[in-house]
């Protein structure tokens, strides 16, 4: 079994605990799309290149995540509704280490 549990609060405030595969080279943005937790065209617009911030989410618990790359930091510095705990979902790869992660999708801009 290669799945971990991740909880995602969608833009309507509804919480979803989903099974996330660790063996499919997926990231949190793709997971949200796979479970259709945000309407098509409102998330993952740049395909996960840290270029659109449509996948911005707020990290709500203290699961340790990999450090931000320069690209992610640069995109978040231009994005809207950014908070201290903002990350780009497409830059968070699904690995066993992030089991139990709780994130909330930032509002669409």
């Amino acid at each position, binding site marked *: 079994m290669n799945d971990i549990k991740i909880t995602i609060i969608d833009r309507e405030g509804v919480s979803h605990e989903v099974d996330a595969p660790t063996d499919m080279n997926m990231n949190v943005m793709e997971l949200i799309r796979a479970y259709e937790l945000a309407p*098509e*065209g409102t998330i993952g617009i740049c395909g996960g290149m840290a270029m659109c911030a449509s996948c911005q989410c707020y990290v709500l618990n203290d699961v340790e995540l990999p450090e931000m790359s320069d690209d992610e930091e640069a995109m978040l*510095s231009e994005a809207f509704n950014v908070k201290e705990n903002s990350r780009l979902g497409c830059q968070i790869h699904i690995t066993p280490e992030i089991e139990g992660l709780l994130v909330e999708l930032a509002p669409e801009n």
Partner: protein
Amino acid sequence: MIETDILIIGAGPTGLFAVFEAGLLKLKCHLIDGLPQPGGQLTELYPKKPIFDIPGYPSVGAAELIDNLMEQIKQFEPGFTLNEVAETIDKLEDGTFIVTTNKGTKHHAKAVAIAGGLGSFEPRKPVIDNIAFYEDKGVEYFVKNPELFRDKKIVIAGGGDSALDWSIFLADVASSVTLVHRRNEFRGALDSVEKVQELKKQGKVNLITPAEVIEVHGENHVNALTLQIGDEKQQIETDYFIPLFGLTPKLGPIANWGLEIEKNAIKVNNALDYQTNIPGIYAIGDVNIYPGKLKLILCGFHEATLMCQSVYNLINPGKKYVLKYTTVSGIDGFDGTRKEAEKAVVKSID
């Protein structure tokens, strides 16, 4: 009025390839796109990236694929209305359509193929309460005509290539240019960053970082902005505010055309020909939805091919079309060219 057989809305890969398939059937195409250049997502979002899943190309650059498609369709002389967004559609009594753009350009077509991808690209607007009030009153999301800013005070916000490029360009046009960015670092071409640095030294660009525009002021036109610089707020006078935070696609005006929409996409009949609920209007490529839909370039090409066959039957009822192979039948371009496989028949052998 622009006249055509198939009016294609969206000049992404799907729309472009549709011109080729239509050309084989002797149907003329005209394309509308809101962007200034053809190519859709490939030119707008990832021009320098390689694509690995186009049949026959182990790897092809996105911009190169678009160049190749443009070359492939040249012989069918498509028309282009670029930089304009298709806004309204009217069906005439004879079943043909008139599509009008946001700039009033009218197109008359026997069939309409919407190849609008994720939608038309619109500017990402900063979250400032009253910003909508100042749009066209000093807030500009695009630099359409640089002359508008001649001898004016301008503030540009953003940290990417557009913000850098326009700061450089307008430094010689405007009376003062202020560039505001949330970080000290910029992400843009290295030489643009260096150029802005140089202009700052010369006093031609006023750089304020890390800072953010948080309020817009003025009676009927922008005359000042409030900046948040660290913990401080500061007002600065300006005639124009140009936020350049990139583009985001929105289905836009097409959403009001009476088409059946599901999950931000247009529902089509995929068992047959990708026609929408309005006969004569088709939707192909990323913009459509049907059970099992995949948003891939390859799938857009396939859908474009079937759409063209259906339009042929719509325009020529009762006329039989027999599928031909281009290898055998060759291609007759509308420009008088003819392409066919070379024949090498040697009748006698000495």
